[in-house]
């Protein structure tokens, strides 16, 4: 238990833990924001009350996730100062500014218009409301842009150089548009969208399986499917481009992702390892299944590589990432989920074209709906895996090739960090359990299909509802939206 007295290791664990938990919530809100823009737009266009009710129902998940996202995100910002003070000082010129941009461009926008989006249905006119919904979605996605810009720069630091232990920026735009930036932003943008789509699809499928409002939820499933047809294949393509970039810019990470210990010189074919048991001590894979020549095709679409693939052994152990097995498997899990999503999307599209997704027979698509329910949590697992590959694979550097992780951490008493780490672990686990509990409560309660539609006098149910218990709303008018 040596690590318990090493404040650098503990700070790393704390950052990893808070990041792994935090990302769960914004992933959903960023993608779902776009979904809410779509359904509200459909409502304004068609005036079909179902779309309005979809907007209201799914926004309950939005607000739950947003609240926890904010609460767990604020510690992330402060940790740069508390636990990583030398890093903050060294990279403040660029990295610090970008963190400031995130707060002003993205977070404030989302926070300011969220109130109107959630509680303003009766207070502003539909156009202003729709604008608020759009601005909330834009704000959330701008967060992705800035955070991924900052993180990409940590992967491929550009636009300046280290002078006396500080990164001096010569060209801000070069730093911002660093080699990883565009693909990383897109990859994460599609990841949040895909995760949210499959969560919404999964929950909808669950209702359909339960035969609760199947007609209503067939609608959301079809919206999800229409979006997934574009997103799922694109994500695979962007993922491929990201992999190629890692090959060019971060050879140590690529070697760990593929568990390549030996180098393959240029001009030769390289095998792709499908499954393996990497052994760091022996610097080899204890067991392995490989596909001959496949790595060449994956990286360059041809059998013989034009650049060498360097193996881990080329670097001294202190210059290459550890936890090779974790990086290797996290990478494979992410890819498997990406392809599963694309497959499920294809299969469902075929059923749709065959007319099997209409209200009267969609409940008979038992296996397909079960597959959607199964897919609901997979996006999260893919996102977490991807981030593990990205950030564990960047080690031993915080700023790739420039600043080492050991030199980035504040000199803190290990007992302090251990205490805060424990507190985070306990509180975040409780938050996770509470979020699951309350999220499932929203699901069990189901949508309220009796909501009055803004701008109309109609009080009768908008769609067929299975009669439930009637609960008169005794709260003051202000509260009854």
């Amino acid at each position: 238990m040596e690590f318990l007295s090493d404040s650098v290791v503990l700070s790393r664990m704390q950052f990893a833990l808070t990041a792994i938990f935090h990302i769960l919530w914004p992933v959903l809100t960023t993608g779902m924001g776009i979904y809410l823009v779509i359904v509200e737009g459909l409502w304004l266009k068609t005036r079909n009350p179902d779309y309005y009710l979809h907007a209201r129902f799914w926004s309950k998940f939005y607000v739950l996730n947003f609240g926890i996202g904010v609460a767990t995100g604020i510690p992330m910002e402060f940790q740069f100062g508390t636990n990583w003070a030398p890093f903050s000082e060294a990279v403040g010129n660029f990295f610090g500014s970008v963190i400031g941009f995130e707060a002003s461009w993205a977070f404030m926008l989302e926070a300011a218009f969220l109130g109107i989006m959630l509680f303003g249905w009766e207070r502003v006119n539909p156009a202003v409301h729709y604008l608020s919904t759009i601005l909330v979605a834009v704000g959330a996605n701008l967060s992705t842009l800035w955070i991924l810009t900052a993180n990409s720069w940590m992967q491929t630091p550009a636009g300046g150089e280290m002078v006396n232990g500080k990164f001096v920026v010569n060209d801000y735009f070069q730093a911002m548009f660093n080699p990883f930036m565009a693909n990383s932003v897109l990859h994460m943008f599609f990841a949040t969208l895909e995760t949210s789509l499959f969560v919404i699809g999964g929950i909808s499928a669950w209702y359909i399986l339960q035969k609760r409002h199947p007609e209503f939820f067939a609608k959301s499933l079809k919206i999800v499917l229409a979006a997934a047809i574009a997103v799922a294949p694109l994500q695979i393509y962007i993922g491929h481009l990201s992999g190629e970039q890692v090959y060019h810019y971060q050879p140590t990470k690529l070697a760990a992702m593929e568990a390549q210990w030996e180098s393959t010189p240029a001009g030769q074919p390289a095998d792709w390892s499908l499954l393996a048991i990497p052994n760091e001590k022996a610097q080899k894979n204890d067991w392995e299944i490989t596909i001959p020549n496949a790595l060449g095709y994956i990286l360059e679409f041809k059998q013989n590589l034009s650049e060498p693939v360097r193996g881990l052994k080329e670097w001294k152990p202190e210059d290459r990432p550890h936890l090779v097995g974790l990086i290797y498997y996290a990478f494979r899990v992410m890819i498997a989920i990406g392809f599963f999503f694309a497959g499920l999307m294809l299969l469902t599209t075929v059923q749709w074209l065959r007319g099997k997704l209409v209200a009267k027979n969609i409940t008979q698509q038992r296996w397909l709906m079960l597959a959607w329910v199964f897919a609901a949590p997979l996006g999260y697992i893919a996102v977490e895996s991807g981030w593990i590959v990205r950030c564990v694979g960047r080690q031993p550097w915080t700023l790739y090739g420039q600043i080492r992780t050991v030199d980035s951490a504040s000199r803190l008493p290990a007992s302090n960090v251990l205490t805060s780490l424990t507190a985070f672990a306990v509180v975040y686990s409780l938050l996770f359990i509470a979020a699951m509990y309350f999220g499932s409560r929203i699901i069990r309660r189901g949508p309220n299909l009796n909501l009055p539609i803004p701008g109309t006098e109609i009080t009768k149910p908008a769609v067929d509802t299975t009669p439930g218990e009637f609960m008169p709303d005794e709260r003051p008018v202000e509260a009854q939206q």
Partner: protein
Amino acid sequence: METLKYFLPQVWFVILALFLFLYVMLDGFDLGVGILSLTSSDEERRGILMTSLSNIWDANETWLVLMGGGLFGAFPLAYGTILNALYIPILVMVFGFIFRGVAFEFRELSRRKLFWNFAFGAGSFIAALGQGFALGAVLKGINVDETGHFIGSTWDWLSLPSVLVALTLIQGYVLIGSTYLVWKTTGELQETHYKTAKIAALTTLIGAIAITISTPIIYESARYRLFQQPLVYIFTLIPVLGVWLIWQLLQSLNRKEERAPFVWTILLFVLSFIGLGLIIFPYIIPTKITIYEASADPSSLVIMIIFIGFLIPVMLFYNLYQYIVFRGKVTGGGYEE
């Protein structure tokens, strides 16, 4: 170039002061309402208290995130050193935020609200306490080496003066929270907060007097600054104005005015803030590191002005718009359908 090196850090000092002030004012009443919810007698009242904040709490808290991000970018050395030195108060604040933030959503969905009510109130109190200790510690001075890196120990932030600052800040938050509730509520609830506002006005006054008297006695560095010409006139004027403002505040409370107490309290906050700014400037880590020593490169500061500066009026506008949309008294105890 030399002028820029003086001018730009000053601009950023002012911008960050503005962000911090907006934070202290807006999240101040927010946290104050949270602390007051611990004294609420029943569920309905707590419901109204939380409803009065439901649409604004995260926008209010964002000013702190913005201040943090700005400090990180504009004064990276100060960001690292101060946060490093204040490890415990900052984490205390952060955990306070976590509890009160999730309480908004979880309370709404929960059948047994007692725990989340408590999490909301206690979280607000803990967050305010952490901020108070942080402020107290910064004023008292952070132990740094000649390059500005923290060399003190874990518990440096805890001292008698920082306890005094923390308690006074909490009183100030309760005061602005009370006057906000006077503005936003009616009936019995409003009556209660006329009372809490009066009590808080008096306790804040006592705390402020104690701080005013003890500052030149305890802090040698501040003493020098306070009695410098011509600042000495300003520093004499501030407490006098402060007492006058509290007098006006108490009178408006006695007259049962609804909005004036909140306005007087804001003016009181403005005044304390100006005083604080004048004591600290031109330091960012008081009496050790100046804003010029801690600032990022001039080019960074320019880029940040370009990217953030023009957004400040925009952000102010849409925050204001939010308050306009949700103007009027809060009556309901729940905010979801």
